[in-house]
């Protein structure tokens, strides 16, 4: 059946108002089902999709840029890019560079940061949203946000001047009691604790506010009725959180952690200031050895020649891929339970 509207209806949007309300006298109302709201919607959709596409274009350009520059570098690398420890791309005789140490250091330090930061951040977020008395919660939330406002370089200085000396004791203690685990063995005792482990701790502090802030907002959105449903079943506060709050906030926590992880993976100056970098891949994470992608870029960029810069881009590309894999995994976890989304409450 044709759905063309009567011609006299086709122009106007239905006048929305009824000055005296609906119980007032009848008012002639014109109406067409083919309203013009498509214009606003189209515009808004265009803006949204356009933004998405713009973002995509930027990222695609960056990716293309990295791939292109990496291609140049890797083709000139005389050694295996993935297994080489050292970084000497500007050696005219034998350009040789590889990401083994950097990939290890990046993954380990970011991993340590996540292991420390995620539980603590969730704890703090819960503290703010469900535990702290209201009067404490608000100011404390601001305070945690304050951590996010501290520039990286300050974290670096604080890390090098304050954190490292305070971790020396912990380091030798870990070595004494957990040295048998191999991982916590210290090759050279007495040296300052400028290791991947320390970097992990520092990164944990740096990403803490990101994860906390986003999780906190998510926890605040948990509908009261679900919390009440759990409490009415005789749940303790913690059980209520486990039943109603955490599952509801799960995708949010994962996303928040991914944001934090992104920062941990890409952090430059703070790591460069604290880590004693080297081209040694040490499985003893307390040893002052190793490097990360971003730290390496910072250390090598200033004096890099043109191949040197390309080589750094190649390392950047690998960091991209790592970020992608981790995020992809996180997305999968979230997507698996999509139909259990809290929005359907």
């Amino acid at each position: 059946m044709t759905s063309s509207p009567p011609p006299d209806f086709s122009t106007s949007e239905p006048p929305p108002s009824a000055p005296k309300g609906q119980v007032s006298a009848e008012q002639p109302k014109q109406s067409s089902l083919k309203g013009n709201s498509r214009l606003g919607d189209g515009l808004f959709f265009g803006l949204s999709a356009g933004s998405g596409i713009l973002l995509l274009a930027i990222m695609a350009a960056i990716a293309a840029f990295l791939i292109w520059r990496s291609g140049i570098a890797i083709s000139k690398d005389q050694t295996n890019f993935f297994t080489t420890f050292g970084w000497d791309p500007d050696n005219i005789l034998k350009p040789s560079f590889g990401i083994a140490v950097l990939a290890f250091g990046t993954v380990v330090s970011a991993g340590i940061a996540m292991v420390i930061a995620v539980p603590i951040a969730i704890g703090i977020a819960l503290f703010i949203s469900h535990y702290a008395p209201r009067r404490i919660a608000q100011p404390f939330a601001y305070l945690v946000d304050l951590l996010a406002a501290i520039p990286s370089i300050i974290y670096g200085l604080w890390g090098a001047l304050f954190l490292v000396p305070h971790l020396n004791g912990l380091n030798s203690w870990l070595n004494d009691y957990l040295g048998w685990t191999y991982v916590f063995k210290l090759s050279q005792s007495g040296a300052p604790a400028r290791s991947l482990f320390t970097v992990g701790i520092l990164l944990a502090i740096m990403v803490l506010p990101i994860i906390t802030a986003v999780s906190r907002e998510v926890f605040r959105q948990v509908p009261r009725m679900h919390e009440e449903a759990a409490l009415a079943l005789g749940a303790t506060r913690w059980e209520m959180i486990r039943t109603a709050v955490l599952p509801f906030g799960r995708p949010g926590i994962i996303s928040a952690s991914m944001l934090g992880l992104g920062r941990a993976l890409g952090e430059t100056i703070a790591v460069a200031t604290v880590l004693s970098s080297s081209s040694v891949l040490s499985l003893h994470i307390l040893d002052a050895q190793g490097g990360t992608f971003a730290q390496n870029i910072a250390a090598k960029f200033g004096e890099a020649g043109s191949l040197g810069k390309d080589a750094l881009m190649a390392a950047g590309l690998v960091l991209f891929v790592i970020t992608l894999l981790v995020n992809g995994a996180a997305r999968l976890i979230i997507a698996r339970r999509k139909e259990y989304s809290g929005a359907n409450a």
Partner: protein
Amino acid sequence: MTTATAVADRRPIPQLNHSLTAARLPRWAPAGVAGAAIALGCAIGVGAGLKSHLQWGLIAALLFVVISFGLSAKVEGTRQAKDRLATSMIWVAFILAVIPLASLLFYTVQQGIGVVNGDFLTHSMRGVVAASGPGGGIYHALVGTLQQVGLATAMAAPVGLFTAVYLVEYGRGTLAKVVTFFVDVMTGIPSIVAGLFVLSVWNIALGFQYSGFSGSLALAILMMPVVVRSTEEMLKLVPNELREASYALGVPRWKTILWIVLPTAIGGITTGVMLAIARIAGETAPVMMLVGVWDSINANPFVGSQESLPVFIWQQYSQVNDQYGYARAWGAALVLIALVMGLNLIARGIARWRSPKSGH
């Protein structure tokens, strides 16, 4: 109706203890345990000759968690004990967060407060030999940071917000998947890579010179994924029934998003944007590469180099590197933190003004 009778054959439900006043620890128990744990922690610290006070604290925290759990498990039963465990762990998390926070803040204030005064805030470094003594200020850097961050936010926040809106409200197809994919990758871009990209495209290929604006381009790239992802999460939590209620009133989708969905999520969105601003306001490497340095006031972000606070801090620390440089660096850090916090407060004020009214 026959089904209802099925309930009649009740199975014995295992051990549901129905006493209202199960044995409980006294109200002062947590405080008492905390005190005992701290005392013990210190005792062990002294006894074992542990130098780092951090360790003392960690031991005390651990003791606190373990003792309250053990005590509660014995007196109150496992469910209460678990609840107490969670509570004490959350308090420990809180304290663990307070330590570095307090330390960092104390450190920064202590080191920086000495130089922060009217002159410092209203003068540039022009004509000052930084390495020889005090003097000069950060006004030029303050201007630069505000402009660069402002420009970056003006570019990235709308794009990020709209992208998140697209992903949550519209996106179901391939485009959404691809955008999501790239946003994810974007979260991990080291700032210096973003800087290099802008340098290659904007400054080298297109031939633009140093300017605050080219720095803000890189900052915008760094900011977008944070805005997108945090906003996305917040929008996802807006109950669908609110959208439906709005649609049913004949409100077009875009108005629903603008006036119903976004306001409901405004608190979280603000937090996300502020996080992103905080992050880029502290960036050094790309700004140095794209904006350069400048010791005088340049209020035009589109022409010529500018200073920015992180770059100023970096220079004073790494290059000037004497007591005066340090003092200026910490002073600038203090101002930068205060600046971001000020913005945060303002944004929250605005957000609260439009955010969900309380109620259940």
